[in-house]
């Protein structure tokens, strides 16, 4: 889900083609294209208006504690995905305007998890332990909230609108499940995990990292843009505690082999057995709860899973 996938890719590709049509090329085709472009602009405006409306709600609710008065009921309905759709790819090397803490100790986690903030001591009662890198529309993240009610989970997503969707979704779920105090333990933020993971987490802070349906970056020259590379694995190993698990799932066999190969070759990771995968509840969640996973299911595609344990740091490396 990091950034997904071929259907989305084809769709966005088609849109690009439509936009690039030269208006002077053909008169009869022209009016047709123009109408299409006009139509697209209109729908984009509509989506924008919807997101703006949601943003207002978000502003009110984002930093609100659980005791704040309930806002208008329709404002906290579950957001609708179609207003937030965004091109499935994002360039991880570009200089996005991102908010990230200068170092992990500067991170104001209380803004994301107000429920776990102890005002008397000014500290968080829990730290984030599970990270869903490239959480997409948040299917897995939402499941993690109830599957691990005692742990804080964080979704990271690089696309602005998709992040807003997940944010709105969490706000709505928190509001709807106020009595049970659910979904207080999940949050999402926009970020570039390939560049700034160590800005968010201390050494050994995480126990699980998920990489679900990442952007396959098929072209060979784009392989460095993949979320699993041997050099990035060293950084993931830094934020993962010993015994922590990296979960990967994809429907692209080539990418699966590539990820498994790089993880297997990395001295700090060891593959978990198929038996282990069968009995692990996260693998089940990952297979079935993500939006991409469900789409693959509908299209009767295959899903490839590989899980790896973070091995102890060699003794001669303090």
């Amino acid at each position: 889900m990091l950034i997904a996938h071929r259907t989305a890719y084809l769709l966005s590709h088609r849109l690009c083609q439509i936009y690039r049509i030269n208006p002077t090329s053909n008169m009869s085709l022209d009016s047709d294209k123009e109408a299409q472009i006009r139509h697209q602009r209109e729908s984009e405006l509509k989506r924008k208006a919807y997101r703006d409306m949601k943003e207002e709600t978000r502003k009110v609710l984002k930093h609100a504690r659980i005791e704040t008065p309930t806002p208008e009921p329709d404002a906290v309905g579950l957001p609708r995905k179609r207003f937030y759709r965004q091109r499935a790819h994002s360039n991880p090397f570009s200089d996005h305007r991102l908010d990230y803490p200068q170092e992990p100790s500067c991170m104001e986690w209380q803004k994301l998890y107000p429920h776990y903030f102890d005002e008397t001591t000014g500290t968080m009662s829990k730290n984030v332990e599970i990270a869903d890198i490239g959480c997409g529309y948040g299917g897995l993240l939402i499941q993690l909230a109830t599957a691990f009610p005692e742990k804080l989970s964080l979704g990271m997503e690089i696309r602005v609108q998709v992040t807003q969707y997940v944010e709105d979704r969490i706000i709505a779920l928190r509001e709807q499940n106020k009595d049970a105090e659910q979904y207080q333990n999940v949050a999402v933020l926009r970020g570039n995990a390939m560049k700034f993971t160590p800005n968010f987490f201390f050494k050994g802070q995480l126990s699980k990292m998920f990489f679900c349906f990442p952007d396959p970056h098929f072209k060979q020259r784009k392989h460095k843009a993949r979320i699993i590379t041997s050099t990035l694995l060293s950084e993931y190993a830094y934020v993962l505690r010993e015994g922590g698990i990296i979960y990967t799932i994809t429907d692209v066999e080539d990418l699966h082999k590539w990820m498994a190969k790089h993880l297997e070759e990395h001295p700090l990771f060891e593959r978990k057995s198929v038996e282990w995968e069968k009995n692990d509840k996260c693998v089940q969640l990952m297979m079935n709860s993500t939006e991409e996973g469900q789409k693959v299911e509908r299209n009767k595609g295959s899903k490839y899973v590989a899980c790896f344990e973070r091995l102890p740091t060699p003794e001669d490396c303090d």
Partner: protein
Amino acid sequence: MKHPIQILIADKSGEHIFASVTNHLLVLRASDGKLIGSWVDPVDAQEFQEKRFKARMEEQKKKEEANEDENAAKKLKNNKKEPKVPAPGPGAPTIYNYIRSLTLSRDESYLIGTTDSDKAAVIFKIDYSQDNCLSLVKRQVFPKRPCSVLTTLDDEKVVVADKFGDVYEIQGKDSAVVAEKDLVPILGHVSMLSEVIVAEHDGKQFVLTGDRDEHIKVSHYPKSYVVRNWLFGHHEFVSCLQICPFNEDILVSGGGDDYLLVWNWWEKKELAKVELRELVAPFLTDSHLPPERFFREDSPREICISKVRVYEQGDQKLLVVLCENTKCILTFSFNEDMSLTHKQTLSTTDSIIDFVIVSDAVLAAVDVESEDNLLQLFRFDDSCSLHHEDSDLTKVISKSVECEVSGRADFYPLYYISSLRKRSEH
């Protein structure tokens, strides 16, 4: 008129000076400025591209011929025209045939440079008994442009950082070249690297890397897959890292921020922050403003630190600092607690491109349109203050520079660190 000197380094004894001007390398004796070694990079960027492209096409052709039958049908469909040798488009940045970085091995018997033309590291054996003390050992081509190199403690390996964020190691002393596709990075950033350093603590080695985001990463070496920690403190790119010779746990870092940071990198502690804005402000010009596209009414003139070096005299320890494209050299003295006290702002007549500390003097390459003097010499007096000194050395050295240009317009870019600054739009 001669092209200004772009890089200056010297050996520890201060007996030999190494300089680069465009694609020329010069080795000079410090006592009298005599030229004792030289090398001109024969590779032209465009030619190299074409050659590489042709080689690739050849290979493909061979492959196709090998399985001719299978592809026969396909070929009929596709084989309409020969692919053209790609030429850079009108908006493409010019590739200059110059040497981007220059380093000596620890035992000072090898000189290592990196070239922009073919993205290579060039390693030379230095032998002062020869007429030309430089002899090329090998030329290792990398997939992306290398920008910083350093040898390991035993000089056996050369650690190379590139502009794609990857760090490689190659054998330093033999002439064997590794095929490009067999090079595997030993560590990497998802950001352009600006400097790499191999540091030591208790006999163990560490690789310190600085990048265009604000990260300084400390990795173990040779187990470079174990990250030890990051040093967080910069808000802008990091462009220079310098280990203090008097205490190898002390690191000075600088870049696009208005300050320098002094670290104990081993203990992961920031020891001091040195503000430069007030000191440098009088020397900043409109050339330090952001490019037009990003310029706003309130845009400040930007500081980029291009070099920091340590000078020791008796028990005095000094830090010499150069900000890119300024007509000044700043010196600071180290206090007991590693904080720094400003000592001197030496203003110069011309902008300084690079400098090197040679014995008790600072030799600076200056940005001048000159036929006979491309350098200036500043000597430390007994109280560690720098004074300009007229010296024949600068003229003798300048005489050895053979790169004639017709004017300033033909200069290669002398200041490129400022282009590292991130200007995000979305």
